[in-house]
């Protein structure tokens, strides 16, 4: 029996682990990966103490801090279900089952999928969820970016230097990303923006050759060799069926990071805390660990 299980090892889970280790709590970490979304980030210029650091570098520093303590980390393992039995919580994963007196859910978010035909077949065959990674393959080619928020605009701006033309497909009536990025996109003669428009099909043979878009003018096929899906994130909260969530499937927490189930806490991007930032996730992780410390004292076995 563990005193605590931390699910997730992004900024929230790692910071919770550091605090829990220093409080000498007996705990383990279960996580699909180390670093979470932070490991995917490009340049970070708003994490205090670092005027400039890349996502992989910052998540390496987090991991180094985590490994400084002798913590049991089950990497490559994913939570599938949470069960409350009496005062204890059972975490069922794809590899086993573990019991604990308390749990911190810090499982973060993942990229949202389009859910249209062709998306799965053409993943990495012209369809990408990471412009930072894959943009260089589209040198001189026409591409589509799906999404008019910050990540969509960021992808379009990165591709402006590489691709021959960029169709920006935006479901909303107007672009919603930061004004400074909107201006950059609008100023480029390489970018065509389609507002109030959705994607209904990704097509091709071995690789992507086009997408079908749909708006009030009807359906239309665009010839593109690349599709970048940038339509936001969804919380990894499906396994936590017994805790209360908001309409975006984010786990509801109070200021002590408590969920509606005693003994189950949550922190970081998987929660309904406003603003998703690495520094906020880290701070929330520390807060959750300190709340657990108090909870364990108050609920001595």
């Amino acid at each position, binding site marked *: 029996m563990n005193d605590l299980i931390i699910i997730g090892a992004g900024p929230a889970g790692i910071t919770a682990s550091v605090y829990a280790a220093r409080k000498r709590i007996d705990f383990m970490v279960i996580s699909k990966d180390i670093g979470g979304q932070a490991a*995917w980030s490009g340049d970070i210029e708003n994490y205090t103490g670092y005027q400039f650091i*890349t996502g*992989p570098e910052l998540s390496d520093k987090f991991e180094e801090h985590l490994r400084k303590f002798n913590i049991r980390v089950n990497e490559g393992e994913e939570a599938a279900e949470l069960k409350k039995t009496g005062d204890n919580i059972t975490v069922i994963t794809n590899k086993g089952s573990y019991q604990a007196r308390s749990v911190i859910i810090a499982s973060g978010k993942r990229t949202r999928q389009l859910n249209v035909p062709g998306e799965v077949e053409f993943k990495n*065959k012209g369809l990408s969820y990471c412009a930072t*990674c*894959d943009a260089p393959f589209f*040198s001189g080619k026409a591409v589509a970016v799906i999404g008019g928020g910050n990540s969509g605009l960021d992808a379009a701006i990165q591709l402006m230097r590489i691709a021959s033309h960029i169709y920006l497909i935006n479901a909303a009536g107007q672009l919603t990303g930061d004004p400074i990025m909107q201006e950059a996109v609008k100023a480029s003669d390489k970018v065509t923006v389609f507002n109030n428009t959705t994607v209904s099909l990704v097509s091709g043979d071995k690789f992507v050759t086009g997408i079908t878009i749909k708006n009030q003018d009807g359906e239309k096929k665009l010839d593109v060799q690349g599709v970048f899906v940038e339509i936001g994130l969804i919380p990894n909260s499906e396994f936590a069926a017994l805790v209360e969530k908001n309409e975006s499937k984010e786990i509801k927490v109070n200021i002590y990071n408590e969920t509606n189930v005693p003994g189950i806490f949550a922190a970081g991007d998987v929660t309904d805390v406003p603003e998703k930032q690495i520094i906020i996730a880290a701070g929330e992780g520390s807060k959750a660990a300190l709340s657990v410390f108090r909870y364990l004292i108050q609920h001595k076995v």
Partner: protein
Amino acid sequence: MAKNVKVYSTATCPYCIRAKQFLTENNIPFENIDVSANETAADEMVAKSGQMGVPVLDIEGEIIVGFDKERIKQALGL
């Protein structure tokens, strides 16, 4: 004997950086091929792996797409 290891990558891709770090930490020498700077190499990578996602590792002809730590370990006998 050291295996012939090629890493097709781009400078900015986070998992490329992690894959290369992993090889370095395990003292595995490798050839890094930046596909964003080399179109021929990019085509070669797409032909070998049938896809465009980086990183791609070529370990003595075994093609591994993505930073798949377990498969990389297996291919290298770590």
